[in-house]
């Protein structure tokens, strides 16, 4: 099998990953048992529809529809985001109700809430989450900060693993403070280095950090036990999960959670060469991360949340110099291994469309939020399938009729010739249920290719 994989072309690899997605395993690694022949047919029909839209070779039977919520399923089921992060059964109940009630062709699973308990054990600083820094009834939110200092580029570039374990983890997780004392493991190359290098592992702060590590691991296992069973049930009911995992554009790795928005912006002026070097250093790591996610989950779509490349966040020249080259390299690296990168262009990316259309056809799947969708169709849309653009405000304050009109117009503008999937444009918390229904129902009714 291994050798066979190495000999395949990227097209064949993509096809092989789609086939694996089409014949899913359950959480125990066995062939998934569908609820009925009908649900099996629905599952495979949904994936075929999505695949045809992505590959842009064949017209799908109709325009597919995704729903990509943030905490909407919790609100809809009458629980708080806090409950969905701490009570895994409640989380599963809410997300199951969401899938079964709205019946999208594709969805994100029940991964969004994650485990609040593990974050507590680790004393996570990078985000505030319900009950920890923000109120129990709202979504988690990132805390902007310089989690990597301006003078730490060399540490990151020289040895990323060591940077993450010894510098980044202790800063981002209060409970991992002791990892600052970890040795550089190259010291274990000779026998006399063993004893010396194991000394730190005997120290109380390091052992305390490992204790927190293990406890968080135990909690994460408990969580995935619940989520795994949920996945089995939802897949068996015919509803594919569209995302295998995630990776990021290197510029966002640095700009989101290492240097932060302000830090990365200043670095473009004050130390552009170091920034460029770090972006290059991170590129193969982000490719590896995406390929790993696809291989582990057994399906080809790997999510890439994009942030700092949006309109206005960089000049055109900065976008072309700092953001696009390594972002494109990551996508090309993924594509070579059969992975379908799924970049989410949050906010507006209208000024970037000309640049980002430089991609092979039928290999990527783009979430479009508030970009000019007609222009997107004429540029990026020529080479890539797009999903999204149904605005969050419409889902909250609109009416089903308004949503219906919007979706119809969207289909008229974008779906001709395939390569389009209807979906909300940004991950949503609040929404009127009837409006969410209107997104799915209008697509299923109006989106049929004749």
């Amino acid at each position: 099998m291994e050798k066979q994989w190495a000999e395949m072309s990227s097209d064949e690899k993509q096809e092989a990953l789609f086939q694996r997605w089409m014949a899913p395993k359950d959480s125990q690694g066995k062939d998934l048992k569908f609820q009925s022949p009908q649900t099996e047919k629905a599952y495979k029909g949904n994936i075929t529809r999505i695949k045809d839209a992505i590959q842009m070779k064949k017209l799908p039977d109709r325009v597919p529809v995704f729903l990509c919520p943030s905490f909407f399923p919790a609100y809809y089921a009458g629980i708080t985001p806090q409950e969905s992060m701490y009570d895994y059964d409640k989380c599963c109940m809410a997300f199951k109700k969401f899938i079964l009630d709205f019946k999208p062709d594709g969805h994100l699973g029940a991964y969004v809430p994650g485990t609040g308990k593990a974050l507590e054990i680790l004393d996570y600083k990078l985000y505030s989450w319900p009950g920890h820094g923000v109120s129990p009834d709202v979504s988690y939110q990132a805390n902007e900060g310089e989690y990597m200092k301006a003078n730490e580029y060399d540490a990151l570039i020289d040895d990323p693993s060591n940077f993450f374990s010894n510098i980044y983890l202790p800063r981002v997780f209060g409970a991992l403070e002791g990892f600052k004392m970890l040795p550089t493991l190259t010291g274990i190359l000779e026998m006399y280095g063993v004893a010396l290098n194991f000394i730190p592992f005997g120290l109380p702060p390091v052992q305390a950090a490992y204790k927190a590590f293990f406890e968080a691991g135990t909690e994460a296992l408990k969580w995935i036990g619940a989520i795994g069973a949920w996945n089995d049930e939802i897949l068996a009911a015919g509803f594919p999960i569209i995302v295998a995992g995630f990776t990021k554009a290197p510029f966002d790795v640095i700009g989101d959670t290492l240097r932060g928005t302000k830090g990365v912006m200043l670095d473009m002026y004050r130390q552009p060469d170091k920034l460029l070097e770090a972006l290059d250093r991170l590129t193969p790591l982000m490719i590896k991360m995406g390929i790993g996610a696809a291989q582990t989950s057994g399906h080809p779509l790997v999510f890439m949340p994009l942030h700092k490349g949006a309109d206005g966040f960089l000049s055109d020249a900065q976008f072309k110099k700092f953001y696009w080259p390594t972002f494109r390299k990551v996508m090309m690296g993924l594509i070579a291994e059969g992975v379908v990168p799924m970049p989410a262009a949050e906010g507006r990316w209208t000024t970037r469309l000309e640049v980002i259309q430089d991609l092979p056809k039928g290999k990527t799947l783009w979430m479009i939020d508030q970009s000019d969708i007609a222009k997107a169709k004429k540029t990026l849309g020529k080479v890539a399938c797009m999903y999204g653009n149904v605005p969050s405000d419409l889902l909250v304050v609109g009416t089903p009729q308004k949503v219906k009109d919007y979706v119809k117009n969207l289909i008229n503008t974008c779906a001709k010739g395939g390569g389009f999937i209807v979906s909300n444009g940004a991950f949503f918390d609040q929404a009127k249920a009837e409006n969410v229904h209107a997104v799915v129902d209008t697509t299923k009714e109006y989106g049929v290719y004749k």
Partner: protein
Amino acid sequence: MAQDLVNTLADLKEQEAIKIVKDRLSAGEDPLKILGDARKGMEIVGKRFASSEYFIPDLVYSGEILKAVTEMVKPKLTKTTESKKLGKVVFGTVAGDIHDIGKDIVVFMLDVNGFEVHDLGVDIPAQKFVDKIKETGAPVVGLSGFLTLAFDSMKETVEAIKAAGLRDKVKVMIGGGQMSDEIKNYTGADAYGKDAMAGVSLAKKWIGAS
């Protein structure tokens, strides 16, 4: 030399700007004049941003240069003079939402355009907006929010302003991630500003300074 500081700051030449300030300070120049020139440089930055010649990173960087200049000049200041302001604006990210990047940009642009901005910060309960409006008598209020949860927080804030009897004394603008004219109507605000420049235009219009 005055013009040099204005231009080097406007052109984002950090090292040069700092050197000029150092030289002028050691030549015994009035620190207030230096600050005045820095301010003029920032006005040019604001104009270039408004005309899409500059982008957010340029604003952020200019802010850092100004901070460095101010820190150098501050110890030499014996008196402060308040430059004449166009008017007061109360600004903040509404309850439940802790995002500040967008808010900070609008506050920055209002500031360089001559407004006295009272920035309350993030996750601000409705009552705090009301209290600040009462305290400052500001005729313009800016509500920022990134998430959809902000829709209701904004609505509650506008209602609280109304309940305090201040609704006809202030104009309210909203802005941020998922905002729109629909949401403006939903919240009962007076206007939605698509970006920082729209926010400045609204404030100028309402204060009668445009």
